[in-house]
Structures are given as structure tokens and as C-alpha cells.
């Protein structure tokens, strides 16, 4: 059934699943999983040129730049200044490649290496600065509703709370906070996009996030580190659609007691015991 597209600033997407390109055992496997996932947007990181891999290959040789919109992240940055530098560097590369992803960034400003949880103060500072520089900022954050609101007010194109820590596969640990985030961000602005970024481990996690009313899910490890990545990519694609449709269809209310599905009249006479 037709759905409205996911609109992230100037980007209009049919797929609500955004996938990362990290941790794949081979570029071929990555390519196959990207294709199967049906995603139109893929994330990448900005790193020092190691004077490339042994064979001189670059991930860009394996990505169809006319097909995918690249979303560069600022992963690995622990302060606003570094995140801003990395955002500019990513934009410079994508500009040169004439990819439509040159105008946005997935902002990550991390607090520490153990949790990889965001530093909310630095994330807010970096958001303000990058918005001023004309970036469309997609903000990785915690599921704290107040922070989410502050990031939106600072001009974030999308607020992207983590379901649980990056790569942890724990799913959406605090659905109540996610619900409040949705209410705060969408209350007077129902089309404002909120994406669950990080923490999902399985298809049911993705479907659950979408059923809560999130506009999309961004994931990487759940596919790349699955035993069968290609099969998981397909599962995630279906889960995202299933969760979205389930949300749009309007689920039944939960009740304590049973309600019969079959008619309660016309039942045969009970036998005597």
C-alpha cells in the first residue's frame, strides 16, 4: 500500500531504512547487502587515508554514486570542533563526486569510547555551528526527550535517538522515552522526521521502532555482523515496511482478558459429562 515518502530536509526517500557500510567482511558482501536492503541512503565515515588498502581499493569504487545518496558521519569525534572539521571534509569529498549527500551530515559527537553514547552538550554546539554553515544536520542523540527538543530547536533536520548503544544489538530499550520524543518533536509539527539510529539487533527491533511511530531506522552492525548478512538485509527491509504499515494501520488496544474471534452464538449443545 502506498505510503508518503520520508522527507529529510531536501531529500525525499521511498525507503525508510538507512544502512551503514561498516564492518563488512568484503566490499562485495557490502554491495550485495546494500542492494538487498532497498535503502537509498547509505552512511560512510571520514578517515585518514591510510595510503589505502593493500590493493589500493577505495570503498567509493564499490558504491554506485548515481544510485545512492551518501550520508557522511562524524563517528569517532569526541568534541564539537572535530565533528565540524569532519563534516566539512566529508562535504568536500561528496561535492567533488557530485553526490547529493554533499549537503548533509550524520552528526555524532561521542562522550566516551566505552558506551559510544553522545555528548549532548557538544552535539548541540556542533548542531548550531553546522546549521549556520548550511548543513542539513541529522543528529545522533540519546533517547532523552529534552535533548531531542533542544536539537530540533537548534535546527536539526532530523533527530535520531539511539534505541540502545551503538552496535549493542539491544533494540529499543526505553520505548517510553521514544514515545515522548515523538510527542515532543511532532506535537505541533507531525511531519518532523525522527529516526532510530543505533542499537537494533534484529528484524523485530526494527519493526518495533517503526510501530512506535518513528519515521525510519538507521542501522549497520545488525546486518553487517549477522551470520548471513544478505539474508538479514532482506529481513530488515521487510521489517521496516511491516512495522511502518502496522503503525499506519492502527493496532488494536491491549486488553487483559480474551475476546473471542469466532461467533459466540450457534455453538452446538454441550455434551453431558
Amino acid at each position, binding site marked *: 500500500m502506498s505510503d508518503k515518502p520520508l522527507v529529510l530536509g531536501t531529500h525525499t526517500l521511498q525507503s525508510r531504512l538507512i544502512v551503514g557500510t*561498516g564492518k563488512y567482511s568484503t566490499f562485495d558482501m557490502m554491495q550485495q547487502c546494500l542492494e538487498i536492503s532497498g535503502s537509498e541512503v547509505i552512511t560512510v565515515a571520514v578517515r*585518514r587515508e591510510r595510503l589505502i588498502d593493500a590493493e589500493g581499493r577505495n570503498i567509493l569504487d564499490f558504491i554506485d554514486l548515481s544510485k545512492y545518496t551518501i550520508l557522511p558521519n562524524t*563517528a569517532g569525534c569526541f568534541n564539537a570542533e572535530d565533528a565540524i572539521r569532519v563534516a566539512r571534509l566529508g562535504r568536500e569529498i561528496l*561535492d*567533488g563526486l557530485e553526490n547529493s549527500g554533499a549537503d548533509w551530515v550524520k552528526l555524532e559527537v561521542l562522550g566516551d569510547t566505552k558506551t559510544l553514547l553522545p555528548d549532548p552538550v557538544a552535539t548541540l554546539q556542533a548542531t548550531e555551528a553546522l546549521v549556520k554553515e548550511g548543513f542539513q544536520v541529522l543528529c545522533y542523540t540519546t533517547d532523552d526527550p529534552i535533548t531531542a527538543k533542544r536539537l530540533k530547536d537548534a535546527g536539526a533536520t532530523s533527530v535520531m535517538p539511539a534505541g540502545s548503544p551503538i552496535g549493542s544489538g539491544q533494540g529499543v530499550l526505553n520505548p517510553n522515552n521514544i514515545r515522548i520524543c515523538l510527542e515532543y518533536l511532532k506535537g505541533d509539527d507531525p511531519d518532523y522526521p525522527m529516526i532510530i539510529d543505533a542499537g537494533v539487533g534484529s528484524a523485530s527491533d526494527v519493526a518495533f521502532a517503526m510501530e512506535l511511530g518513528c519515521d525510519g531506522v538507521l542501522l549497520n*552492525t545488525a546486518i553487517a555482523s549477522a551470520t548471513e548478512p544478505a539474508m538479514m538485509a532482506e529481513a530488515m527491509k521487510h521489517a521496516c515496511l511491516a512495522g511502518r504499515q502496522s503503525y499506519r494501520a492502527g493496532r488494536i488496544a491491549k486488553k487483559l482478558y480474551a475476546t473471542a474471534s469466532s461467533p459466540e452464538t450457534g455453538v452446538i449443545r454441550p455434551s453431558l459429562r
Partner: protein
Amino acid sequence: MQITVNDEAREVTAGSTIADLLEELGLRPKFVAVERNLELIPRARHAECELAENDKLEVVTLVGGG
């Protein structure tokens, strides 16, 4: 003269530009972005931007990430 590229010391001929350096490193200019002393140097300026003694360069590309 000596410069630093991604924290590694390197000798380059005086008068070398960023474009010269990328060529020497065997890098495809389109796939990289260059910062010189913390300032991003846009690709259009690589050919005119001459390196100076003790310049610190960051040369980055895109890699797999989430």
C-alpha cells in the same frame, strides 16, 4: 623540506603544491579531502596551494561506517 601528512613526517620538494603531494602519494584527488594546518583546502585550490616547511596535513577519504 619537511611536512607532516597524517602524523607521518615526509620530505617534499620546496615549491610543491597539494596537488603535487597527492600525485606523489598516488591518491585520486576526487576521493580525498585535505586539511592544511586545520584549514580545509578545497580541491579547486590544490594546484595553487604551495606547501610550507612544517605544514601539518590531514588527508582523508571515505570508509565504511555506520
